[in-house]
């Protein structure tokens, strides 16, 4: 599904070169579950942007489903995001003026899926996250956990192959956080490839594999159960 080979991401800051990612090589098989951990500034977000086709590696190769992402242009990347990828963000990124159902429908609106099919799929997706009755509510009228579940419904409505979650529980209390994680893991169990960026070692341990980044380099790449997580990695969420 995903193959990163010697990926570098370099930013030019003044006359200095800043390496956000250094020679990252990793693989995620179809239906896999990878946790990305590491302190702030370790390159987690950069890695997620590249995996999410929002950004391209400066050097190295990224194969997604056999496509070489580094060689695709912007319209092709947006096609991949549209049809193959789902995103879940720490701060939900719901459009505040739209109702839950309209937020869920947004990817289909952009993809030009016809109206009647949209409402059907929206209903199904909201039902799957247990928010069928909240369809007509705006984000401001929903709790954080509900917002994140709306966002998950939105990410699933295009039936992507790969879901990228950036600190999905970062803004939630532990109870709604764990229900969100259960939801994501259940979808993973149904065959969806899941990549989660997290600070929470408990989430890391539940993943098939964990990659721990430090200064843009891979510090550990181990099965979740073998994660060694020191205090120096820990920091407050957010």
């Amino acid at each position: 599904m995903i193959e990163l080979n010697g990926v570098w991401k370099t930013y030019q800051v003044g006359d200095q070169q800043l390496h956000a990612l250094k020679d990252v090589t990793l693989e995620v098989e179809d239906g896999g579950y990878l946790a990305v951990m590491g302190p702030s500034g370790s390159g987690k977000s950069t890695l997620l942007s590249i995996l999410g086709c929002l950004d391209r590696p400066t050097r190295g190769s990224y194969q997604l489903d056999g496509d070489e992402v580094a060689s695709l242009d912007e319209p092709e990347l947006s096609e991949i995001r549209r049809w193959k990828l789902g995103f879940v963000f720490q701060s939900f990124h719901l459009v505040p003026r739209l109702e839950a159902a309209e937020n869920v429908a947004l990817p289909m609106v952009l993809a030009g899926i016809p109206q009647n099919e949209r409402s059907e799929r929206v209903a199904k997706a909201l039902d799957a996250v247990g928010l069928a009755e909240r369809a007509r509510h705006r984000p401001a009228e929903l709790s954080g956990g509900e917002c994140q579940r709306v966002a998950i419904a939105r990410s699933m409505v295009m039936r992507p192959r790969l879901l990228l979650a950036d600190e999905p529980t970062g803004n939630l209390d532990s109870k709604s956080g764990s229900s969100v994680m259960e939801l994501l893991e259940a979808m993973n169990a149904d065959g969806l490839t899941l990549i989660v960026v997290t600070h929470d070692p408990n989430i890391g341990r539940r993943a098939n594999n964990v990659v721990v980044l430090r200064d843009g380099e891979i510090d550990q790449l181990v099965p979740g159960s073998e994660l060694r997580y020191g205090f120096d990695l820990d920091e407050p969420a957010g």
Partner: protein
Amino acid sequence: MTLGDILRFAFTALARHRRRSLFSVFGMTVGVASVIVLTALGEGAQRYVTDEFSSLGTQLLIVIPGKNETTGGVIAGGIGGVPNDLTLEDARALERGIPGVGFVVPIVIGNETVSHLERRRQIMVIGATHDFLETRELRMGIGQFLPHDDFDRGAPVAVIGAKAAAELFGNENPLGRVLRIGDWRMRTIGVLEPKGHQIGMDIDDLVIIPVASAMRMFDRSSLFRILLRLDSHSDLETAKTRTLEILTERHDEEDVTVISQESVVESLSKILNVLTLAVAGIGAISLTVAGLGVMNLMLVSVSERTSEVGLLKALGAKRRQVHALFLAEAVLLALAGGLLGIVFGFVLVELFTVFYPKFPAVPPIWAIFSALGVAIGMGSIFGVLPARRATDLDPVAALSGR
């Protein structure tokens, strides 16, 4: 993404900031309304003048003494350039010599104190003939108009306007009464039907007497004008040339000007057209200002919604989709302002006509469409910059709120 989707999404964005969207809409409204009102007034002025002149009929020639060019000089006999008198004889010659002429009306104009008993009034006195009535399309209220006499038979009779009659005679019946005009005594034989102003002349406040009487009264040797009304089938240009020929022959030089009613209307119309365009241009300036207002609003909106733009991109929105969404907002603002401006403009024009009912102020069709078109154009032009700014946002930075 269908057009309906784009418009719906854009509309929700505008509806969220109702107040500032409305201000922006109002800016457009004022711009469009001002174009409509200004052009309606310009068009109205044009129509007013054209109507005034057309009411006299277009088959009309006017002979004016003098030539619209500098003539003569010191060497050429010393008196070159002084036009010969335009006389009653000339008028008679025209009556005989022009085929298809309906009426020939010699005219003299002056001001004189007109009095009846103790009441006096300084008003315009027109010397004319019987056919003046029809040539100027006037109607009699009571009594009769001037008799159908020879040009040079100056009968001591007078016809007065409705207002002058009321002022001088009060409730008394003016018919048969003696009217003093200067030192002259005239018998009142008729009162005109009220008509109001006609080409700057107050038809209701004047006295009309036979042209020969007026020439003696004012001690004039020359007429003020000769009006020629042609039959509807005769050619205006031919008659004009012939008139000039006859008078040139009689005067031994070309010392008169012949103008047709049509050409007067035409040139006035041209002047007023330019005026209308000029005021429309002034309106267009306010439309431009409104366009800048829309742009300002959209720039603020884009910077407030960077994370939304990032999200749209993460969800697979194409550049042109993002562009279309933000451009649609600007166009919607402009369109709403434009439509509202048309309504508002019409209301103002209606109000105006309530206060000035005689002024035919109607917004021209072209102004309505072009004002709306320019408004939408402004929205599109000034919407491009903000839309491009949104399109160019880096999704990663936009999502993280940087």
